[in-house]
């Protein structure tokens, strides 16, 4: 037993060092975001001193150049409404596909599953051109595209869960006079909650961080930039010139994610594990 506690002590120390290593890049960016932009490239690892400390200048600069708050708003808009649309519509689809068994529903189910293994590069060019033709190059259009592209995984996960719900519950509801819509919303949907949380978290993480789809569909020259697009826009066009604004913008982009993570860590970790196991 003594050997085991000694081992645990050593492991504890190693883990502490690893924690420091894991946090280093974020702390590095945070530290430099408070330094004058010229000092960042000269001595990137030096702590800010009285001479090099620039207060919030970098933040003001970065926010102005990219319209960060507008990007935050559009990111939030697209993420929230896409996730809601995915939850509502794919759970309904999954319910229908599981409970009605015929050639059409089987075919549709396999199409949704198939779409999960298709990489985005396969459809990105045609999808973005179609989006232009059909005027989907705006935030509501993005919600539609995310619903379509996220449908595969969501339908697959909901179907897996609905199969395990005993049919008797729904039959009882039907006998009590519910039509299929009432049965679904009053009886089935509440049971789906655990899977719905998983689906919501997986999709929220993906949509919030997604870069290529909003970039290709909405582009740089519109007011609808999301956060990843705004970051790429600032760095792509100002690049090495304004390191300060860049550091500040990176910090601002990470903060919402960390806040969200710390607030619902339990659900996120459970959701990610469940998603990985089923996906």
């Amino acid at each position, binding site marked *: 037993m003594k050997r085991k506690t000694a081992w645990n002590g050593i492991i504890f120390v190693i*883990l502490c060092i690893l924690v420091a290593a894991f946090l280093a890049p974020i702390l590095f960016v945070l530290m430099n975001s408070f330094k004058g932009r010229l000092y960042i490239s000269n001595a990137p690892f030096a702590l800010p001193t009285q001479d090099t400390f620039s207060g919030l200048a970098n933040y003001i600069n970065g926010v102005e150049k990219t319209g960060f708050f507008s990007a935050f708003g559009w990111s939030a808009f697209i993420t929230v409404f896409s996730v809601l649309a995915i939850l509502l519509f794919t759970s309904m689809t999954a319910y229908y596909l599981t409970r009605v068994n015929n050639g059409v529903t089987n075919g549709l189910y396999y199409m949704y599953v198939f*779409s999960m293994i*298709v*990489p985005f*590069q396969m459809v990105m060019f045609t999808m973005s051109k179609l989006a232009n033709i059909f005027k989907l190059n705006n935030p509501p259009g993005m919600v*539609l595209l995310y619903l379509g592209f996220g*449908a595969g995984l969501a339908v697959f996960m909901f179907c897996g869960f609905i199969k395990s719900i005993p049919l008797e519950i729904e039959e009882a509801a039907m006998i009590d006079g519910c039509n299929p819509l009432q049965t679904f919303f009053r009886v089935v949907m509440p049971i789906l909650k655990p899977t719905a949380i998983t689906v919501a978290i997986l999709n929220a993480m993906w949509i919030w961080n997604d870069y290529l789809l909003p970039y290709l569909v909405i582009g740089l020259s519109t007011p609808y930039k999301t956060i990843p697009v705004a970051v790429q826009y600032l760095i792509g066009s100002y690049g090495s010139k304004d390191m300060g604004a860049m550091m500040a913008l990176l910090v601002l982009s990470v903060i919402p994610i960390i806040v969200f993570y710390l607030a619902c860590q339990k659900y996120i970790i459970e959701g*990610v*594990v469940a998603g*990985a196991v089923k996906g």
Partner: protein
Amino acid sequence: MQKTLRRYFPIFILPTLIAFAFAFILPFAMGVYLSFCKFKTITNAQFTGIDNYVKIFADRDFINAFWFTIKVSVLSILTINIFAFILALALTRRIRGTNLFRTVFFMPNLIGGIILGYIWQQMINAVLLQFETTLVANATYGFWGLIILMNWQMIGYMMIIYIAGLQNVPTDLLEAAQIDGATGWQALTRVKIPLVMPSITICLFLTVSNSFKLFDQNLALTAGAPSKRTAMLALDIYNTFYGRMGYEGVGQAKAVLFFIAVAAIALTQLAMTRRKEVEA
């Protein structure tokens, strides 16, 4: 019950199906067709047979991107899974602060690829500045940069899955092994690893497909510099579409091959590792 539900087809099926048609079915079908065409916009395509596919194999950038992707994938799959498994073993020993460690190790996984890529670009450039060089000076730096970045991002994720697997190993089996005189190493290789094989399947599958399809991180970290030598396949396809006039068809053909490769990897690996799973 089926009969009444069947009449509700438009409400239950159509909204998702319409979105799915715009986002996936139409683009996918057109993509397959256009890979056999020469086109600038999708409305003026001209059928050219397998011309685009022939051009791919004369494209040195593509061949280079292919080998670079293989190298990055193999090394990162090994390192990520080994480190993640070791961390999972360490965090299932009931050490003080386990929850805090888990929280920190998992966090990078939530940060998006673009932001992550730029954070590491800054960090690595600052280190290389001490040696008066930069990340884009040499393709080797870009290679190791990607490996470090992917480890940083994915170790925590895989670690969580391994922890879940290890916690499901029945303690009576481990006790039985101990009574039979198994050493710690034997308990690990003969009991724990066979029993967490399902988790290993999942993690291998996830790391393979994540690294093979990597794009955002690659774009942000080096964007392929110097001279496209650190471009992975997804970035090469993107560059072919949007960086070279008249090569849209070739880009689409590359995308089709990429899709076939991704699908093949996913299916073979699932089939291969499923066989090794052991019932507890």
